[in-house]
C-alpha cells in the first residue's frame, strides 16, 4: 500500500489536457493515477477551453502540479489490447465525459482484466459506441473530403480541401491521406485544425474557416455530370442515400447541389421510359378478320404514322404453310394485298415452278405498314428497324396462333427476326429446319426482292438456291 501514502483521502485531482485529441497525454497521466490507486470519482479530466465537471470548476487551483507521483516500485498497469484499440478511437470523440469514462473502465480493468469481454456492460457498450461513431466520422472524412486544385506561385499544383468533422479526428487521419496522396501537395482545412503535406513533410496548422479554401475547380463540372448520369431514375431510394450521406455533409460536396433536381425529375424520367416502351394491354384477337381490322388502327411504332394503310395477311385459315415477308411495298400498300408487286410476282413464279400452290398458303408480312422515304415522286422502300420488327411481331404471333401452320417460310432477315426474336444470318440458317416453340418448323431463305437486285451469274446462283429452298419446303409439305 505504498501508493496510498501519496494520496490523501478525499483529495480531488483535475488533469488539464493540452489538446482534445491527446490520447498519449491521457494515457501517461491515467497510468500514474492508477499506480497511485486514485479512484475514478476523485479525478476530473479537463479539455482545453472546457470546464470539466462541477467539482473541478469549483477548485480551479487544484491543478496538474498536485498530481501524486507513483512510487518507483509500483507494478505496471496492464490492459487488454481490445481496450487500447477502442480507447484510442473513443478519446477522439467530442463527448466531454469520454476521458472520465475511459478512466473508470481502466480502473475496473485492474480488478477484472476481462471486463472488456462483457459486451452487455453499459460502460463497455458506451466505449464501443464512442469508438464506433469516431470510426464512422473518420470513414466519412476519407470519403467526403473534396480537394480543389490551385496553382502555386512556382507553378506546382496544390490540392486544398475544406472539411467539417464531428470529432477530433483530423490529426489521426492525416496518415490515410498521406499514404493515398504521397506524391501530391495537399492541405485539409477544418474547424478543428488543419494538416498540410508537401510530398515529404506533414505540418499541422491552426483551425481554419471555409473562406480559406479555394472556391471552385473546373473538374467539378465533369464530376457533377458523372454524378447525374450514373444515377438511375428508375430506382429512387432517397432514404438509403440519406442514411449514408446525411444532409450535414452536403454543403461541402460539389455534387450534392444536384440532388433535389435529380429526385424531382426522377419520376418523370421513369414514366417517360416506361411510356416509350409501353403498349396498350389488349387481348389477342381471335380471328384473322379481327387482326385485319385491328392492325389498321395500330400505332405502336412510328411506321404506322406515315399515312400508309395496314396490309393484312391473305390465305386460308387452316393453311399448312405460312410465308412471311418483310413489309408491304409500294404496290401492296396501294392495293392493300400482300405480295403483288415485282417481288411478289417473282415469288409466284418460283412457287409455281416448285409446285407450291400459292392459294393454299397463308401469306403475310412481319411488319404490317409500308416504311419508305420520298425520293422525288417515288416512295423508296426502307428496311424496318429491329425495334419496329419486335413491336409488330405481336400481330404475327397472333396470326400464327390462329392459322397454326405446320411450316413457316421466312423470306429474308427481317422475317427471320420476326419469327425468332433475334437477328440471324440468312446464309447460315437457310437449308435447315428450325423447330419453333409451338412445334412448327421454320425455314429461312432470302427475300425475292434480293434476286431482283442481282444480275448476271450472281443472280443465277442465288435463283438456283432460292428454288432449292422452295423445293425443300414442298417436300416437307408432302411429307407431313
Amino acid at each position, binding site marked *: 500500500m505504498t501508493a496510498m501514502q501519496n494520496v490523501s483521502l478525499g483529495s480531488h485531482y483535475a488533469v488539464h489536457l493540452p489538446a482534445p485529441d491527446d490520447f498519449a497525454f491521457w494515457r501517461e497521466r491515467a497510468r500514474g493515477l492508477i499506480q497511485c490507486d486514485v479512484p475514478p470519482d476523485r479525478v476530473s479530466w479537463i479539455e482545453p477551453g472546457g470546464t470539466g465537471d462541477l467539482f473541478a470548476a469549483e477548485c480551479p487551483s487544484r491543478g496538474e502540479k498536485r498530481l501524486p507521483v507513483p512510487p518507483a516500485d509500483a507494478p505496471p498497469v496492464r490492459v487488454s489490447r481490445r481496450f487500447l484499440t477502442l480507447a484510442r478511437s473513443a478519446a477522439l470523440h467530442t463527448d466531454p465525459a469520454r476521458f472520465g469514462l475511459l478512466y473508470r473502465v481502466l480502473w475496473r480493468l485492474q480488478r477484472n482484466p*476481462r471486463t472488456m*469481454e*462483457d*459486451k*452487455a*456492460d*453499459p460502460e463497455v457498450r458506451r466505449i464501443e459506441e464512442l469508438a464506433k461513431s469516431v470510426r464512422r466520422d473518420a470513414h466519412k472524412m*476519407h*470519403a*467526403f473530403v*473534396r*480537394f*480543389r*486544385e490551385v496553382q502555386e506561385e512556382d507553378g506546382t499544383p496544390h*490540392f486544398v480541401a475544406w472539411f467539417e468533422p464531428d470529432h477530433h479526428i483530423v490529426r489521426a487521419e492525416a496518415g*490515410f491521406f498521406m*499514404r*493515398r*496522396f*504521397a*506524391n*501530391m501537395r495537399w492541405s485539409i482545412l477544418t474547424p478543428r485544425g488543419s494538416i498540410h503535406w508537401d510530398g515529404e513533410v506533414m505540418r499541422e496548422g491552426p483551425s481554419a474557416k471555409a473562406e480559406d479554401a479555394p472556391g471552385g475547380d473546373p*473538374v467539378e*463540372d*465533369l*464530376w457533377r*455530370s*458523372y*454524378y*447525374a*448520369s*450514373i*444515377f*438511375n*431514375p*428508375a*430506382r*429512387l*431510394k*432517397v432514404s*438509403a*442515400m440519406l442514411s*449514408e*450521406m446525411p444532409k450535414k455533409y452536403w454543403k461541402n460536396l460539389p455534387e450534392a447541389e444536384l*440532388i433535389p433536381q*435529380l429526385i424531382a425529375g*426522377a419520376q418523370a424520367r421513369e414514366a417517360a*421510359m*416506361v411510356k*416509350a*416502351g409501353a*403498349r396498350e394491354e389488349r387481348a389477342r384477337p381471335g380471328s384473322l378478320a379481327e387482326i385485319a381490322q385491328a392492325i389498321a388502327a395500330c400505332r405502336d411504332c412510328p411506321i404506322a404514322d406515315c399515312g400508309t394503310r395496314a396490309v393484312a395477311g391473305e390465305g386460308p385459315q387452316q393453311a399448312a404453310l405460312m410465308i412471311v415477308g418483310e413489309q408491304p411495298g409500294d404496290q401492296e400498300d396501294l392495293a392493300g394485298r400482300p405480295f403483288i408487286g415485282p417481288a411478289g410476282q417473282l415469288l409466284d413464279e418460283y412457287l409455281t415452278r416448285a409446285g407450291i400452290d400459292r392459294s393454299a398458303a397463308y401469306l403475310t408480312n412481319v411488319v404490317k405498314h409500308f416504311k419508305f422515304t420520298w425520293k422525288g415522286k417515288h416512295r423508296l422502300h426502307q428496311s424496318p*428497324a*429491329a*425495334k419496329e420488327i*419486335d413491336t409488330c411481331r*405481336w400481330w404475327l404471333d397472333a396470326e400464327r396462333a390462329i392459322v397454326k401452320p405446320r411450316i413457316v417460310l421466312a423470306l429474308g432477315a427481317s422475317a427471320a427476326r420476326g419469327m425468332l*426474336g*433475334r*437477328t440471324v444470318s440468312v446464309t447460315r440458317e437457310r437449308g435447315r429446319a428450325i423447330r419453333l416453340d409451338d412445334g412448327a418448323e421454320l425455314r429461312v431463305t432470302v427475300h425475292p426482292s434480293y434476286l431482283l437486285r442481282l444480275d448476271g451469274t450472281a443472280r443465277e446462283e442465288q435463283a438456283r438456291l432460292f428454288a432449292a429452298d422452295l423445293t425443300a419446303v414442298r417436300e416437307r409439305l408432302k411429307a407431313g
Partner: protein
Amino acid sequence: MVQQTLRQKLEILADAAKYDASCASSGTAKKNSLGGKGVGSTEGMGICHAYAPDGRCISLLKILLTNHCIFDCHYCINRKSSNVVRARFTPQEVVDLTLNFYRRNYIEGLFLSSGIVKSADHTMEQLVEVARILREEHDFRGYIHLKTIPEADAEIIHRAGLYADRVSINVELPTDSGLTRLAPDKNASQIEGAMGRTKARIVQAKDERKRFRHAPRFAPAGQSTQMIVGADDANDAAIIGKASRLYNAFGLRRVYYSAFSPIPDASAVLPLKRPPLLREHRLYQSDWLMRFYGFAPQEVADAAEADGNLPLDIDPKMAWALKFRESFPVDVNRAAKEQLLRVPGLGTQAVGRILAARRHRRLRLDDVARLTASIAKVRPFICTIDWRPTLLTDRADLRRLLAPKQEQLELF
C-alpha cells in the same frame, strides 16, 4: 456529325454503365503510393465517396469505353438494335478522367466495361490498355475493376487480371434458356468456361505468392458476377440455386443481383413490368444467409413461398424461422453459435457479442436488448433467464405481428 465534347461522352458512357450494380472497392491487396511516383492506396475497406439518390454508392468511376456494340442482348440499353446515342472514349481520355477524379478524392478507382466493337479480342485489348497506362505510366495504385469479355482470348484476359484488382464476367441471366432467348449472341458454357479459367489463375497466383515474394498478383480482389432479376421468369429459388452453384464452382467474391429496370428504347421482348426493388434486396439478404449465417441453399429455398419466390414483406431469415418454428425458442445462454445465427434479428455481430458476454454473466432480456438493434423482433424466438416466449412462438398470427406495418398512403 458534330464532335462530342469530353463531358458529353462522359454523360453518355456513364449513363450506359449504370446498369452494372457492382461498385465494390474492398478486399484487395493493401497498397499505397509512398515511395512511388503516382497516387493511390487501397487499405482493405472500400470507401463510398458519394451516394446517388437511387441509394447506390459511388465508389468507382464506372464507365464504358464505348457503348457501340455488335451484340443484340434484349435487356441491354447498348444492344445493336437500340436507338441510343453512341460515343467512344480513347484509352487516354479514360486515364485522364480517372486521375483527375482520383486526385480530388472523388473516387476509389476505375470500373471499366465496354460494348463490343469489332471483335471481343479487340475490345478486351482496349480495356487492358487503359489499365496498363494507369498502372505502368502513371504508377496508379488505386482500385481497378475490369469487366472481362468471355469471348475474348484467354491470354488477353490473363493480362487484365495482372493489372486489375478485380475482374468480373456477367452471367447475365439465371437460366440458360433465358440467356438463349434474351442474349442470343452469348453462350452460357463460354461464360462459365471463362470464369473457370479466371478462378484457376487466381488460385495459381495466390499459390505462387506464397512461394515467391515477387510473383505477380492476379486480381487480388477476386472475381464477381452479376445476374439480372425479373427479365426472365426464373423464381427466387432458381436464382439462389444458381448463385450458390457459382459461389462453389468459381470461388466468386460476390454475386450481384440487378433488378431489371426499365431502360430507354427497351426491346419489345422484355416484360414491361419491373420487379419490385425489394425483391433484389431479399435476394441479397438470402445471399448473406448462405455466406455468413450457415444456411444451405436448399434451406433458403425452403423459406420461399409456394411460387418459389421469397416473401417481400418479411426478410428471408424471418420467413425461415416462421416456417420452422420447432427450432425455436433458442436459449441465448446455452445455444450454439449456429443456432443463434438462425434467430431473426440477431446479426453476426450481435451473436459475437452474446457469445462474449455470456462468459461473464447469465443474460437477461435487457442485456440482449443492449446487444441488438431491435429486441421486439428477437423476443419471440429466444429464452433468457427472465424471459420465455411461452405462447408467442406458436401464435398463428406471429407473422402479422412481426411484419412491418403497412402504411396508409396519403391522398395525393
